[in-house]
Every structure is written in C-alpha cells, then in structure tokens.
C-alpha cells in the first residue's frame, strides 16, 4: 500500500502558499503599482508645470526689469536701477537680480540678505551669455542629489534677458536668479504624499481583499473539514455557500459524495447480507481460505456435506482436514485443487477428488477452486464443491449401458454381415449352378424346370437383397459414399436397364437433363442408381404403353453443393389418392392385388425413401389414377472440383465380346475362396474364357502361394473376404507388404453389402470389388479391366454392315428352336447376342425378355420383327 507523498514546500516561497495572501498580496501590489505609476506621472507633470511657471515668472521678471531700465541705463542712472531692482525683489521668487551694462559691468546687483532685499556693490560680475540658447537654465544642485528622488533636485533658475532699445542695439543684460526651492519642495511634497498614499493604498487594498476573501476562504475551510469527516461518517449533509458559485458547487459535490457514500455503504451492506444469505442457501458447499490455506468462511451446505461445523473449521487448515481421514494426516499439496488454483492463479475444476467427512467417510466431489487476486497477488481462495456420488454412479451405469449398446450394435452388424454372407453364398451357388446346368445338354422339360429354378432363385435373390438392404438401412449401417462419377455413365446404365426390362412393350424411353446439371458429380452413385432403377422398373412394370421419361433438374446450387431432382414420369395406370398415401411405407404396394399381378416385394419404394433421406433428400409422387404417375426424389450431391478419392465405380457391364475375352486367355489367376461350391463355379467361369486358375482355400495359403511363386506369375487375385484362418483383408495387407506384389491386382469378392467393408478393402489395398453373387457379366468386364492383354485384341471389323449370311443361318436356327419351344434357344441367343442386338436392339431385348419368361410365342414374334428389320 503506498502512502500519498507529502507535498514539499520550496525553501524560498516566491509566492505565499496561503490562498489568503496569495490573493491579497498580488492584488494589492498591482493596485499599488498602478497607483505608483500614476503618482509618478502626476508628480512629473506637476513638477513640469511648476517649473514652467517658475520659468515664465523668471522670464516675466527679467523682461519687465529690462524694459524698465532702458532709460536709466542710457543715463547711467544707477540709483534708479538700484531702486527698481530693490522694488522687484519683492517678488518672492527672485533670489538675485542683476543688471549689466553693454560692457558686462554690473550696474545693479540686488539679492536677499536675511530675507531683506539688499544692494551689493563691487561683487564679481558673472560672465555674460555667449549664445542665445543658454539664456534660461538651472544651476547644478548644490545641496546634493537625493537618492530616492526621481529627479535631480534642481538648483536655481537663471534667466538672462538682453536689454535693447528696440532697434537692435544691446544696452546691457538683466540676470535674474529664481528660487527653485518651492518647486523642489512641491516635488518632494508630492513624492512624500505619493509614498504615503501608496502605503495607504497598499494597506487598504490588502485589507479590502482580505475582507472580501476571508469569508469564502472560511467556507472553503469548512468544506475541507467536512470532507475529512467523510472518511468516517457518511450520509451527513452540510449547508452550502450560495455567495460563491464555485464553493457552493464544491459543497454540493461533497454532499453528493457523502450521500452516495452512504448509499454505497448501504448497498455494500445489503450486498454482503445478500451474499451471506446466498452462500447459506446454496445447494453447493462453499468455503474460503486465506493465503495460508486456513478456512475463513464456510456455508451451511458445506457444513452439512462434510460434517464439520463453521466454528470448528474456521481458522483451521481446511484442506488437510478434507483430504485426509484424520486432521493431522498428510496429504499431497499438489493433489489439492485449491493449492493448485492458487499457485497457478487461475480457476481450476476437478471432479476426481474425494473429501473426508468428520466421521471418516469419504465421498467423491466436484470442485471449482478460484484464487482470490488483488493487484495480481493471491490473497486466498474460494472453493465450491458438490457431492457427486450420485453422478458417479450414474456415470458408471451409463458407461455400462453404452458398452452394452455398443456390443449389441456390433452384434447387429456382425449378424447382418453374417446373414448377408450366409444367405448370398448358397444363393450364388443356386444361381450359378442353374446357369451352368442350362448350358448343358437338356431336354426341353429339364430346361424349362431349370429356367424356372433360375428365375425363382433370381427373384429370391432380389427379395433377399431388398430385405438385407432394408435391414441395413434400418440398422443405420448405410453410409453415403462420396465418389466422382460422370452423369453420362449413370444415364447409360439406366438406358440399358430400360432396354432390358421394357422389351416387348410399346413404350418409348427418354431422358431429359437440365442444362445446368453438371456433367461431373460427387455423390453416392450406387444409391442414386438404385433409386432410379427402382422407379424405372416400377414405371415399366405398371405401364403398358406410352412413354417413360427420366427428368433430372437442379433444385439448388450453392457453392460446392447441388441438390438435384430426379423424376420418372410414366403413362401407366396411375394411382388413386388412397394408394398414393400408402406408398413408400414398408411392404406396401398399391394394394395386394398388384403384388400378385405385378410381382415385387413391396420394399422397393420404402428402400428408395430411406436412401433418398440418407442423401439429404425426399421422395414423392404425383399421379392421377389412369393417367400415369411421376415418381421423384431429391438428393444432395457435390459438384466435382478436385479429384476425390474415387471408389472404383462398379462399372456398368459393357457387353464383352469373345474377341475381347480372347485377349486375356491364358492369364494366370489366383482364386482365394473357401467355399467349395463357389470354388467350382468360379473355376468354370474362368476356364471358360481360357484362364488358368490356381486355388487357395484361405488367406494364409494365398499369401504363401504368392510369396513362393515367382514374381509376375499371377495376373490377378480374386480374393474372398470371409475365410477361416485368415480373411481377405489381412491377406491383402500382408500381400501388399511385399513391394514386388504392390501392383498385383487384387479383387475382393464380397457378399458383404456394407459400405464399411468396401472402405476396409480399399484401405487394405484391394483394387476392386466383385459383389456376390458373381456372374460372368460382372466378372468378365472386371477381368478385362485388370488383366493386361496376353493376346492382342482382334478388333472385329465394326461394320455396320451385317453379315447377312450368318444372320440368315442364325435366324433360321433360332426360329426353329423357338418354334419347337426349346430352351436351347436361350443359349443360342446368348451366343449370338451381339449380332442380333446390333440389328435391332429393342427387338432383341424383347426377344430376350420373352425367352427369360419362357414365353416362346412372344419370343417368336420378336424374332420375326428383328429379322424383318434388316
């Protein structure tokens, strides 16, 4: 605490420090100075006047004597001159009067002896004046100069007057000496009076100012005294002093201070009271310590919580009592939040400590310790604490619940994964085997039965896919992918789907894309495709004739994000109001009759809805019964700016030609698969196109095989995911550890539809995926993609011109087959698919669809149309 420094008065007070004198003296001095100046001026003027008067008197005297003595001078009547002079001596001012003749002889010489005019004879004559400029002057003062006199005391005034007879002849001179005594005396008198008056004025001024200033200064003093009392008694008021505005204002201010101090004190008191009450009513324990950690305050709640009373605790080192079972126990200072808060000079929270009660019991506490700082120095601390036993318990319960939930969620995922795998694997086998069986020599009935098995299996697979998709969506296991794709690619796939599905129906399909839809997008390609496929399939299903249009437009485009609307419009049967309402709910078709008529699980729209919602979109339908429907959905995508890590898009299946497949014939492929059925199937697929297949039944075998084999022996690895001993991921990781195997294409064969799986594959180092069930349609393009050609591709001459001869032969054979309702026709169609499609794609599609449905009549007419279109 610093004390205010004492004011030091300088040793030499140039100005007094008391206001009284500081005011009075300068004013008085100024007044005196002014008066003195005026007195000086007045005295000077008066002196000048007196001197002027004297001079004029002297001149007058000399002149009159001069004139009067002309005759006497001429007649040398000295007696008359003498008498004239004696008479003139009556003029009190004259000291001597002398008359000179033309030769400078004194003819008359009169002065005063003992006050009487007396004539003198034979005194030495003063010299005559030499120039006319020295006729009136003062003799030097013979009495000495008075130091305090502003003017030199004048000697006598000498006046010379020439006597001439009026015609320029100088007869003589008059010399009069006049007494300046009176003038000097006047001067002295004036000065004495001045000084006396000066003194008088000084005193008067001092007195006047003193009197004027006395009262205000007294009032100021009163203000000072009052101000001092403010330090210990507030609220008192004192009367003002209206005479002087400033002093009155001072009083008003002091009164204000006094009352505001009183108010502040009252507020402080109330505040303190309130705080005390607050502290008491708090639901938390509060205590305060001084710098050494001794308790200075404790509230009621604290008492209750720790069992010690205020009286017991105040003054004691509270922390050691709280942190230890016995008050004398040791505790680590650094573990006490209060000491840490104080040493760090900042607020500290801690909910890991426990306090001991008086009875020795312990309870967990949440503490907030706040150091009390004053000017940066720690004065003490305030600690607020709560009993958090309940909370801890709750936390523990929550933690276990969370763990249980996580476990259950993991169980669900595993279940889904397992189910997916478990279901798909046999399905894969069924479908594959059926396909293979159909490729063998069969009688029509067998073919028919097998076809039906295949169709049913496919149908079942699609149902299972829907169910698994739906379950995945419900379980929240679906993740929106971010991949870059070309819109054109999507549209191509949709177009081919359409042509696949709509064969036979007189429906035209068109796609309209808004000009401001960017060609390149980033989003979940597969999900979008799934929804559109669903809509389009539905549209085809429920439309007999007319048009199906796909409309893509932009709803919103903001920086990198773009919201697109995809709408599929058809001219089908349409929906009633009631039907529309029930759509998009799980398991609902328009009504049960339609499911029977049109097939389908009813899950498609529900899945579409959830998929759209995953992509931050919505679904909807506009329809009028009998007039067609428009099914739409919106989805949020991003515009492609940078190359995002593109998951390899499931490339559409371009039709692979035999010629293309021939280029990879002979490629050495490692098949890693544990399931014998799948092994068999895959081997057949691969050997059909001339590839050599090596088998590994699990990941570990695969790794060993690859490591032992010379570098470059394998062109591709087809890796199953779930295998015993070592699964696909681990195997891939191990394989990739070898630098020489870094570039080896590894394709994952995954029955797992979960996107997480795909991510894991990518991270493990897989290049691509083949979703199960695997068909040649999906397998061959992939092989072509990843396996470098062993045999240069024979580019078939892409002639628009059709080999008519071949066509005729094929056509004839097909016609015969179909007419005979032989299932072989399907195989035949497949063999010459390329050729036939090239002629008339729609008719081909129609034909194919009919054959798939084992509808030979429709197939025949389609074939006819096809052949006629050449």
């Amino acid at each position: 605490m610093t004390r205010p420094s004492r004011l030091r008065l300088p040793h030499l007070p140039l100005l007094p420090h008391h206001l009284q004198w500081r005011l009075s003296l300068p004013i008085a001095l100024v007044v005196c100075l002014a008066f003195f100046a005026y007195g000086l001026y007045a005295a000077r003027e008066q002196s000048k006047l007196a001197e002027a008067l004297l001079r004029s008197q002297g001149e007058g005297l000399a002149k009159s004597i001069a004139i009067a003595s002309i005759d006497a001078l001429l007649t040398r009547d000295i007696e008359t001159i003498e008498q004239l002079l004696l008479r003139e001596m009556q003029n009190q001012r004259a000291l001597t009067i002398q008359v000179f003749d033309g030769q400078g002889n004194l003819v008359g010489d009169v002065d005063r002896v003992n006050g009487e005019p007396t004539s003198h004879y034979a005194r030495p004559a003063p010299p005559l004046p030499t120039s006319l400029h020295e006729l009136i002057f003062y003799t030097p003062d013979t009495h000495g100069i008075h130091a305090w006199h502003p003017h030199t005391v004048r000697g006598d005034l000498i006046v010379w007057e020439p006597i001439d007879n009026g015609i320029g002849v100088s007869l003589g001179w008059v010399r009069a000496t006049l007494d300046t005594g009176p003038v000097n005396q006047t001067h002295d008198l004036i000065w004495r009076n001045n000084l006396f008056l000066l003194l008088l004025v000084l005193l008067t001024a001092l007195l006047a100012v003193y009197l004027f200033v006395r009262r205000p200064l007294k009032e100021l003093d009163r203000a000072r005294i009052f101000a001092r009392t403010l330090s210990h008694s507030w609220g008192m008021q004192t009367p003002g002093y209206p005479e002087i505005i400033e002093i009155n204002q001072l009083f008003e201010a002091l009164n204000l201070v006094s009352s505001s101090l009183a108010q502040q004190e009252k507020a402080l008191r109330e505040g303190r009271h309130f705080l005390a009450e607050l502290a008491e009513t708090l639901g938390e324990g509060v205590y305060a310590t001084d710098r050494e950690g001794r308790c200075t305050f404790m509230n009621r709640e604290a008492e209750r919580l720790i069992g010690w009373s205020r009286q017991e605790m105040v003054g004691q080192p509270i922390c050691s009592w709280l942190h230890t079972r016995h008050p004398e126990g040791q505790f680590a200072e650094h573990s006490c939040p209060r000491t840490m808060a104080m040493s760090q000079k900042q607020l500290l929270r801690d909910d890991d400590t426990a306090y001991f009660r008086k009875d020795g019991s312990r309870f967990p506490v949440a503490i907030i310790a706040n150091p009390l700082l004053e000017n940066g120095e720690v004065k003490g601390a305030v600690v607020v604490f709560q009993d958090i036993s309940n909370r801890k318990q709750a936390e523990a319960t929550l933690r276990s619940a969370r763990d249980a939930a996580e476990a259950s969620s993991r169980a669900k995922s595993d279940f889904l994964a397992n189910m997916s795998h478990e279901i798909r694997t046999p399905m894969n086998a069924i479908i594959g085997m059926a396909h293979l069986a159909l490729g063998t020599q069969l009688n029509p009935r067998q073919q028919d039965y097998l076809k039906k098995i295949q169709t049913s299996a496919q149908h079942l697979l699609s149902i299972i896919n829907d169910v698994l998709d739906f379950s995945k969506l419900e379980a929240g296991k679906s993740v929106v992918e971010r991949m870059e794709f070309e819109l054109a690619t999507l549209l191509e796939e949709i177009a081919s789907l359409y042509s696949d599905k709509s064969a036979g129906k007189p429906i035209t399909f068109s796609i309209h894309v808004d000009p401001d839809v960017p060609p390149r997008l980033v989003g979940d390609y597969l999900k979008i495709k799934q929804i559109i496929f669903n809509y389009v399939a539905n549209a085809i299903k429920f439309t007999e004739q007319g048009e199906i249009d796909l409309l893509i437009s932009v709803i919103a485009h903001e920086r990198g994000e773009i919201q697109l609307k995809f709408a599929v419009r058809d001219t089908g049967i349409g929906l009633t109001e009631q039907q529309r309402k029930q759509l998009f709910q799980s398991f609902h078709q328009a009504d049960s009759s339609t499911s029977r008529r049109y097939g389908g699980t009813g899950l498609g729209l529900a899945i579409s809805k959830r998929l759209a919602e995953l992509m931050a979109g919505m679904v909807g339908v506009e329809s009028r019964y009998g007039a067609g429907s428009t099914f739409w959905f919106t989805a949020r995508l991003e515009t492609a700016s940078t190359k995002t890590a593109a998951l390899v898009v499931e490339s559409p299946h371009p039709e692979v030609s035999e010629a293309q497949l021939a280029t990879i014939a002979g490629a050495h492929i490692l098949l890693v698969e544990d399931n014998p059925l799948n092994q068999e199937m895959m081997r057949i697929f691969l050997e059909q196109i001339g590839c050599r297949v090596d088998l590994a039944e699990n990941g570990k075998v695969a790794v060993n095989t690859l490591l032992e084999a010379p570098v470059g022996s394998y062109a591709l690895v087809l890796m199953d995911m779930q295998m015993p001993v070592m699964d696909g991921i681990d195997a891939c990781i191990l394989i990739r550890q070898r630098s020489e195997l870094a570039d080896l294409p590894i394709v994952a064969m995954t029955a797992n539809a979960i996107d997480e799986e795909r991510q894991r594959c990518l991270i493990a180092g897989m290049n691509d995926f083949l979703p199960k069930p695997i068909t040649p349609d999906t397998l061959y393009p992939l092989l072509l993609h990843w396996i470098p050609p062993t045999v240069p591709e024979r580019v078939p001459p892409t002639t628009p011109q059709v080999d008519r001869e071949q066509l005729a032969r094929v056509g004839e054979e097909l016609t015969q087959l179909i007419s005979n309702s032989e299932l072989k026709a399907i195989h035949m169609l497949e063999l010459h698919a390329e050729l036939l499609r090239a002629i008339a794609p729609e008719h081909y599609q129609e034909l194919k669809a009919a054959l798939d449905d084992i509808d030979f009549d429709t197939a025949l007419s389609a074939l006819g149309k096809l052949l006629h279109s050449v």
Partner: protein
Amino acid sequence: MSLHRAVRHIRYLLALLLSLLVPSAWAAPYTVALVPQFKARQLQAEWRPLLDRISAETGLEFKLRFYSSIPEFESGFLAGEPDFAFMNPYHAVMAHKKQGYIPLLSNAQPLTGILVVAANSAIHSVEDLNERRIAFPAPNAFGASLYMRALLIEKERLIIHPQYVSTHANVYRQVLLGDVAAGGGVNQTFADLPDSLRAGLRILYETPPSASHPIAVHPRVPEADRRLFSEAFLKLGQDEAGRALLKDARIPKPVAVDYEHDYRPLESLKLERYVVLE
C-alpha cells in the same frame, strides 16, 4: 439757551474779535518753501509734521510751497515769494542780497563737501583729477557741487569735466563703477551710505566747513513772529518727538545763525560764477 452755553458762545466771539485785532492773526498763513532737493511728496512728509507742531506751539500758520525745480525755487525766493525758505548757503547769500532774507536757523554741524574716488583708485591727490571726468549731483548743490567746483577750479587750479548725475546716490555709484574718476558729495550723504558702498570709496578732498542750509525769513515777517518761530524750532530739540521731526527735516541740531557771522564770508567766493543755469 442755558447761561453756560451763552457764556461760551460769547467767549468764542470775543476770541474771534481779539484775534482779528492781532495783526498776526489777521495775516494769512506763512508760506514755507523748501529747496526741491527731493520730491515734493517727500518734502511734504518730512516738513509738515514739524510745521504743524510749530503751529501748535506758536499759533502761527504755515503753508508749504513746493517748487518743481531748483531754478524755479531760485526764481521764487529771488522774487520774494515765500515767507520762510529753507535753502542752501549760496541761495541764502543770493536771497539776502536781493530780498534781504534773514537766516534764522541751521543745523549745527557745518557742511563739508567731499570729493570721493574709488577706494582702489590710482588717484591719490587732487592733482590727479586734472582733465578728468568728475560726477556731481545737481549742478548748484552747494557743498557737493558749487563750492567743490569753485575750489577745484579757483583754488586748485584744475581743469575738470563735470558730469551732473542728479543725485548724490548716483555720484557715489558712478564713482564706484568707474564711470567717473571722482565724484562730489557731502559728508552727510556719504555717512548715510550702506557700508558696502562706502567701503568701496575713499574721500580724496574736502571743502572747508561752512554753515549749513539755513531757514531764512523774509523781512516782511514781523520780528515777533520770527522770534516765535525760531524759539519754537529750537525748542523742538528738547524732546524725543521733536528730535524725530528735526531729523526728518534734516536739521538734527538746529542753532540760531547770523548772516554777518556765518554767511558774509561766502560772498567773497564769487560762487555765482559757478552757478549753472538751466
């Protein structure tokens, strides 16, 4: 009218009658003429009180007669106009010769004419004054001018250049100033000078003393009256007031004089030769 008053009236009448009988009472007041050495006013102031006293004592009446200049005065007494006249010794001789005026009284102290030079003058004897300028008051002032000139020329056989400067005061001052080599005055006026002035002068030469200015009476005045006047005049010297009066009249010590004894010798001086006529 009361008896007392009647008696008083009668007494007056009688006195008047008697006074008529006395020839002197019948006579008109005597004229007294004074030589106009000074201004009329001054003379009046000096003589009137004295004459009044004598009047009171003698019962004689006197009237002062003023002449504006000395020549007029001289013409006057030569014509016998004034009854009494106060004149200088030379006038007395002339008046006696012409009219028979009888000198009655004069101042006891004899008159001496002096010749003064500046105290530091180089002139130490009268011979040095030959051919020099000498100041004299009025030309016919007896002691200072007339007698002195006559002596200087007749006796000392000097050639002088006289300068007439009107008053004794001027003579002395001019001598002091050096305007003239010397100046003529009388011992009385010299004695009256201020000390400082007198100190600057030196008496070079003196005339033999002569009787001073007399008061002469015309013979027509009866002898009784002449005697009354003289006695009263002489009695003045006996008291203080009288002495003061005498002092004013410049006859401090009056004595009776006799023509034969005091003034006859002056006839031989042939002073009339040195009278300057104006």
